[in-house]
């Protein structure tokens, strides 16, 4: 065999294990889900029903409520982006106690979403510490039913999301900040640029790729990563008011017998939505970078 042929054959064979693993773990379930999205499937038997699942999804009105719920989480991203930026800039500037705060902000990130969720559920219960605290300082009568009303339930969920994401956000922005050359800051200082000018003119533009990365990953998280938090805090309630699409996929697949086909179709819809949102974000951020 020719040396180059053998060389390329070795290369392909080296790739094969990873490709096979990906095929078994990613591609096969994806193709399987796609095929089953056109069936009525209960896990044991599947019956081909064409586009009926998709028709149901787009006509029963449920999708728009789910999308609204995902959009609410999506709209909360700028808040955590700003918060992470502020905290990371303060830590980068080495404000007093920065070593302590660096560890403190990261702790929630290492907790699982279920632990965070259970903790928040207890804290925001009617007889929980939050109500006791608010009553103690005279801000409310202490009977607020945080998880029984959609707006306050969303507040609690977004608070959990922020609490858990802050550490990760700070870490990402700190690495972004540390990659900015000190010489630029020194030159700007010699030219008479103040702290704010350095922040607006140097730090922020240099952080655009990091901001894009943070926004894209969290936008994707808002569509596909909220399940554990929603499951442990509100279970999608009250009603279906805080149910995002990924949680509905679970409800349809595992709590609505015979709906695995519908659930597969909903998964495909979610896949397309995430693809479009990510594509739009990356396009937009490319323009920013230019």
């Amino acid at each position: 065999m020719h040396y180059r042929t053998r060389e390329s054959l070795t290369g392909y064979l080296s790739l094969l294990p990873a490709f096979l693993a990906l095929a078994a773990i990613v591609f096969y379930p994806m193709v399987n889900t796609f095929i089953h999205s056109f069936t009525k499937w209960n896990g044991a038997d599947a019956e081909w029903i064409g586009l009926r699942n998709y028709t149901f999804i787009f006509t029963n009105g449920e999708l728009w409520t789910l999308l609204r719920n995902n959009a609410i989480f999506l709209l909360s991203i700028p808040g955590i982006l700003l918060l992470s930026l502020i905290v990371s800039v303060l830590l980068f500037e080495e404000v007093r106690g920065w070593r302590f705060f660096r560890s403190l902000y990261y702790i929630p990130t290492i907790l699982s979403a279920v632990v965070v969720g259970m903790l928040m559920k207890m804290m925001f219960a009617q007889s929980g510490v939050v109500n006791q605290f608010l009553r103690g300082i005279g801000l409310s009568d202490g009977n607020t039913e945080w998880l029984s009303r959609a707006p306050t339930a969303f507040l609690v969920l977004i608070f959990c999301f922020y609490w858990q994401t802050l550490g990760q956000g700070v870490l990402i922005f700190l690495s972004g900040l540390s990659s900015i050359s000190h010489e630029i800051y020194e030159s700007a200082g010699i030219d008479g640029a103040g702290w704010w000018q350095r922040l607006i003119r140097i730090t922020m533009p240099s952080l655009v790729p990091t901001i894009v990365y943070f926004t894209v990953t969290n936008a994707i998280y808002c569509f596909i990563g909220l399940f554990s938090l929603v499951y442990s805090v509100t279970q999608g309630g009250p009603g279906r008011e805080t149910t995002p699409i990924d949680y509905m996929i679970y409800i349809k697949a595992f709590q609505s017998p015979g709906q695995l086909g519908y659930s597969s179709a909903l998964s495909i819809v979610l896949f397309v939505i995430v693809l479009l949102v990510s594509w739009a974000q990356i396009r937009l951020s490319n323009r920013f970078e230019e």
Partner: protein
Amino acid sequence: MNRKHKGTSLLLAASLVLLSACGSGGGSANGGVSPSASSAAGGEAPGKKVKLVFWNTSYPTIDENDKTKKKEDFYIYKAIARYEAAHPNVTIDIQDIPDGANAMTKFQTAGIANNGPDVTNLWSGNYTMDLKSFIQPLNSYLQPSDIEAMTGWNAVTENFADTGTIYGIPDGSDGTIGILYNKKLFAAAGVDPEQNPPSNYAEFADMLKKLKASGVTPIGTGEDGDFVYFLDYWFAQMVGTSGINDIVNGKLNFHGEKLLEVMKSYLQLYKDGYVKTDQHETQFYNGKVALIFGGFNLINDAHAALGDDLGMIKIPNFSDAALVKDGGIGGTGADFVVSKSSGHPEEAVKFILFLVSKEEQIARFKDGYGKLLNLKNVDAAQFTQNPLVIRQQQWASEPSTIFWPDNIYPSELSDYIGSLNSLVIKSQLDAGDFLTKLDQKRDEILAQK
């Protein structure tokens, strides 16, 4: 180069082994022994070892008040020890799993992967029927005498019929859901529900008004408004058992004059401040609320907390126009099933029949288990002095006890009702809209069938 080639071949072989291992790893849910594996180890032949995996969703194996209590001291472990002693070739591997809807989910996923347990408990009625693709039909394993000895077979038979495919074995009885009340708080409000039980909504509301005036919260319910325990009864008694079936089949709508009136009256209880939904059972045990809705399952705990101050009456009729009067919701709400992936269905059924046998039902009843007996011709009064328990057993055998409507609705609809009802009681969803949404969901489920 040759060494490189060999290395690549080794890598390839290793990856194939890894992938094949991933593909056959379905037995983990059975503690590492899949039914097929246990089948190979056991088989039906006499003298061969049989291992039955039992997913326990209902028997207590942890004592919240005594965490040092050993597993062997709990009833189910004692029962298993008795069974294993009588059947030396059979080993029961009991595994605790979450109950209720989570049990259904786990059973379904295991069924899809063909690694379900041999035996488990599920909720009966449509909760079980919705999973029948993964459940072994049991007719051929049951003797007429088995069926004759127990009640509750409709709840485990297809279409709730008297005869047909049986998918489960009824597991005891939940009794009849009534009102558990605090006699002391009622007396302080000048109300004696035993002597003057409220007979309709107006009298019930009047009773609650007096309780509230005495400074106590009259009712405690769960966060979903106790739809299953309380509101469902008023629904069912107004349309009758056949009406519930008609609703399920789409012949009758939730949104109608009768049920709308029920909903409005029910919501009025919340609007008038008669109901608290925060940790209702604890609040009741602590004397903070005057009554809760519950059946036999709560009597032991309530009695431990309130002693002789615990009273029990039936939920009042909604109105004189009710089709079923002086009853309640209840019956056999759970069953034992054998998974289709079980390698030993016959042995599994034998084990279940042992658990629901007269001797074992009496033993677990005496042990304080949260279910009444579902045996024919057996009187609970023989085994208890508690008058409330005796009354529960009497109620359960009355024809006015309506079988759990949430077990008759498709399980997806029951879940939907529970989630929406929490919105209704917080006045975030209009009663009429609620009923319309239920009709839409029911129609959607029927259309997808």
